[in-house]
């Protein structure tokens, strides 16, 4: 059974679809990266997963149960759209209150604070915390229930590079323990490092759902050769559907193993091959292509 499964999930505000017939699956034990530009519908989707927002149509199953079923969030921890706590009490008191709602004890509070390295500052008032400390407390709240599924919306927001690395290590450690993690992030390199699979969302629609390797996988052999027109003719004879020319670079959408054969064919045809390389696109390029964005805040 998948840990998260949505089917035709849709949320409309008036006539505007925020999320449009979303079919998303997060497999048990994986780290799933949820990518998309601002306003793509990621947070609305995460809110629907937790039962905070009701879908207009479609369904959500968390571990086989609807999020509105009593007790269905028992094994789910979440940090949605930034940390939110009671400002007039300490971080520890905040977690103790949440622990009462979650049916957990003080030991769970101390453990969660230690996991996010906030134990030393836990007795200070929340409204005196820095942005990074607030984010850590949000993560601690998400970890209170020792969850099977962790939903994290931009978990490294506000953290310094060391803090971001800690979160990456924490996610990796949780994965080893079998925790399923669904995280949205605007840092593509981070997603590339942490996630097994990625869902790319744009304008409320899931544009792609695949492993990072699969998404990046459509590599190409790039060739610089002279004369260019003869090289292109040879290439098109070899790969009729997969040749494109970008300036003086010929790009062939073939498997990596075919590079030597292509090189030999070009040489046999009297083409001077100046450079031949294998190139895989960065996740960012794939992302921008899928979302139709260029240099947009993601």
């Amino acid at each position: 059974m998948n840990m998260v499964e949505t089917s035709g999930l849709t949320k409309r505000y008036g006539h505007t679809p925020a999320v449009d017939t979303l079919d998303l699956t997060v497999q048990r034990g994986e780290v799933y990266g949820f990518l998309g530009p601002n306003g793509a519908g990621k947070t609305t989707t995460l809110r629907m997963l937790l039962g905070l927002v009701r879908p207009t149509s479609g369904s959500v199953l968390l571990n086989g149960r609807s999020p509105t079923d009593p007790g269905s969030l028992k094994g789910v921890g979440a940090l949605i759209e930034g940390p939110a706590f009671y400002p007039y009490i300490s971080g520890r008191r905040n977690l103790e209150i949440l622990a009462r709602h979650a049916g957990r004890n003080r030991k769970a509070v101390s453990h969660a604070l230690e996991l996010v390295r906030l134990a030393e500052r836990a007795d200070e008032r929340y409204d005196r915390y820095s942005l990074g400390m607030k984010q850590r407390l949000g993560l601690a709240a998400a970890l209170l229930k020792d969850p099977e599924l962790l939903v994290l919306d931009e978990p490294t927001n506000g953290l310094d590079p060391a803090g971001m690395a800690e979160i990456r290590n924490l996610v990796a450690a949780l994965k080893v323990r079998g925790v399923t993690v669904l995280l949205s992030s605007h840092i593509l390199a981070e997603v590339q490092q942490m996630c097994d699979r990625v869902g790319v969302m744009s304008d409320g629609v899931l544009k792609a759902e695949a492993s990072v390797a699969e998404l990046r996988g459509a590599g190409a052999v790039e060739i610089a050769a002279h004369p260019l027109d003869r090289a292109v003719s040879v290439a098109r004879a070899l790969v009729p559907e997969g040749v494109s020319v970008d300036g003086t670079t010929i790009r062939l959408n073939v498997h990596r193993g075919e590079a030597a054969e292509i090189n030999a064919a070009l040489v046999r045809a009297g083409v001077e091959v100046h450079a031949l390389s294998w190139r895989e696109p960065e996740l960012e390029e794939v992302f921008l292509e899928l979302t139709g964005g260029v240099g947009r805040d993601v």
Partner: protein
Amino acid sequence: MSDIRAELAKLLRRPASWLLLGVAVTLGLLFNYVVPYLGYAGGVGAMPTSERGLRNALPENLVGNSVAGSPVFVGALALVLGVLAVGSEYAWSTWKTVLSQGTSRVRLYVAKVVAVVTATLVTTLCIFGTGAAAAMSIATAEDMPVDWPAPSELVVGVAGGWLVTSMWATFGVLLAVLLRSVALPVGLGLVWVLAVQNLVATLAAPLIDWVADLQRYLPGPNAGSLVASLGAGADTPGVAEIVEGGQAALVVGGYTALFVVLGGWMLVRRDIM
């Protein structure tokens, strides 16, 4: 129970809760005991008036004095408490944090209402307790008789004061859910409690028959009637025996239930943004 304990902890640890309690108790003491006593001891008022004021401040009038403020100023403070308890969850975006812990909206809402009406009970008891101490001090200082109300009168008085303050507190809860904020519900709620119902009673009701009839079913006039039947002085703002005490208690109880159910229904149905 753990949800209720969590909600009580939020109220207990919030400085604003204690400020509201302090203001309610201080105003009650000031207008029920301090001002009448000062008027008697060294004031410029005519002697019969100041003597009447002193007699009203004695232990025998503890119930009437302690519930007199609940239709207006204690009620207004209770409304603010109700708004703060629920509206702050919107203002601080903490609904999502709490609901993500797995408790249901209904359980959370019930826990909030229980915490708020517990706070109004504590407020009512504090007003009675401090009033008793003040009345006893005045009676002792002036060598006047110390005649306490019967225990049954005290119980009914506390219940009446609690019911009225709970009605206004749950009105605050409803407004907070309806408007999903703090400032607007506090503002509109206070305009209703302090201004509109007063204007209806003093301006519109004497001129228009159907408004006078309507008053019999409005929350404010019924709250005023209930506390009047318990002995609150008719010269207190918002206190007038328009209907008899039993009906008033039923109407005030009915409004409390209506506010609680409406607020819960809206919270359960709407998205948490």
